[in-house]
């Protein structure tokens, strides 16, 4: 890899890491187009590199979130079952698709994801639970300390089957497209399961490492992980994710979400154009 490509890749990785840690995503949605469109790397290799970047973001950000008590570990274990099954299926199917087909799938998926991203509003913290049964779903109840509110927030997880189904789809998207799937999981957990957005982002972030690793093994076995490219991108992502944690505390999430949605649509249009050329 020549010097200017290394610099572009490292800077792209930093950008993906910043965006990934702010939104609770893996950053794959930036890395894949960067590799395919700018560095002209075939999409299968780009997806494999991106999956490793997702693991790096998840591990770096997750280590901090789990210590702060933001991650709902019981919810993680349940949703990981669904998301890993989806990821294995996605990774296996991807091997039988042509790069152009994969690029079109990516463009359509990113366009569809941009809509909930743009429309999702700031989440109002749900009221504290008023029932205390000992059922399975009740055991997924979570709590964390919110420094912005100055008190502990308690929440119940609603519509678990919907959250599991969406996690399965997110896992499949991960295996096919090299994204973490957080861009689907965070809105789903927030809008359908009524998990507060901070806990949803932390829980999603924690899961995407396992989601990505399930399909990354498949790509690694096929020899589609490029060592120098992957190492450079991962180092950029790691640096960016540390930087992003600083921004995340100060930024207005509603504005950032809309800006990000526009960025996603531009990426999708570019990728579709590339596929049909």
């Amino acid at each position, binding site marked *: 890899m020549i010097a200017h490509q290394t610099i572009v890749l490292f800077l792209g990785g930093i950008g993906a890491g910043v965006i990934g840690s702010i939104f609770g995503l893996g950053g794959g949605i930036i890395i894949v187009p960067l590799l395919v469109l700018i560095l002209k790397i075939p999409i299968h290799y780009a997806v494999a590199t991106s999956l490793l970047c997702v693991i790096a973001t998840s591990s770096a950000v997750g*280590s901090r979130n789990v210590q702060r008590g933001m991650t709902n*570990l019981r919810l993680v274990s349940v949703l990981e*079952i669904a998301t890993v099954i989806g990821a294995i299926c996605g990774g296996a199917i991807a091997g039988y698709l042509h790069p152009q087909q994969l690029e079109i799938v990516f463009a359509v998926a990113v366009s569809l994801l941009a809509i909930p991203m743009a429309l999702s509003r700031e989440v109002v913290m749900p009221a504290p639970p008023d029932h205390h049964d000992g059922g399975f779903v009740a055991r997924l109840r979570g709590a964390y300390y919110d420094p912005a509110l100055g008190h502990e927030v308690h929440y119940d997880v609603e519509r678990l089957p919907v959250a599991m189904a969406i996690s399965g789809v997110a896992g499949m998207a991960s295996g096919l497209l090299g994204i973490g799937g957080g861009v689907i999981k965070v809105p789903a957990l927030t809008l359908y399961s009524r998990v507060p957005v901070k806990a949803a982002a932390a829980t999603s972030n924690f899961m995407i490492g396992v989601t990505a690793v399930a*399909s990354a093994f*498949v790509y690694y076995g096929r020899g589609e992980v490029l060592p120098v490219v992957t*190492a450079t991108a991962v180092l950029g992502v790691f640096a960016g994710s540390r930087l992003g944690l600083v921004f995340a505390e100060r930024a207005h999430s509603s504005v950032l979400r809309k800006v990000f949605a526009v960025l996603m649509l531009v990426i999708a249009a570019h990728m579709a154009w590339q596929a049909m050329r």
Partner: protein
Amino acid sequence: MTRRNLMSIILRLGVLVSCSLFIVGILADAVDPIAFGTIKPGHIPLLLQALIHGSPAAMLHIGILVLLITPVARVVAMVWTFARERDSTFATISIGVLLLLIVSFTIGAMA
């Protein structure tokens, strides 16, 4: 040690080891570019042997493997801690996640 600390340490350690290997591997590659085709991905004994001889390719491949193993190690820690808390339901669910990851690893190894 709480389960939060254990998982946090595992994740941090994985990132630290893989990033260190990546930095050294990239710098060594910049000084003396190497042919990556000579090392088959995933051939661990060969990779370890090459690592001892300071091969940049081996450093990068092992860095990638460490990164791949990190989330799996985190799931193992989750099983262990749920089990220690006598939370059999969630320990069993976490074992299910681990078995699914083994399935994906097997598919990867056969590819």
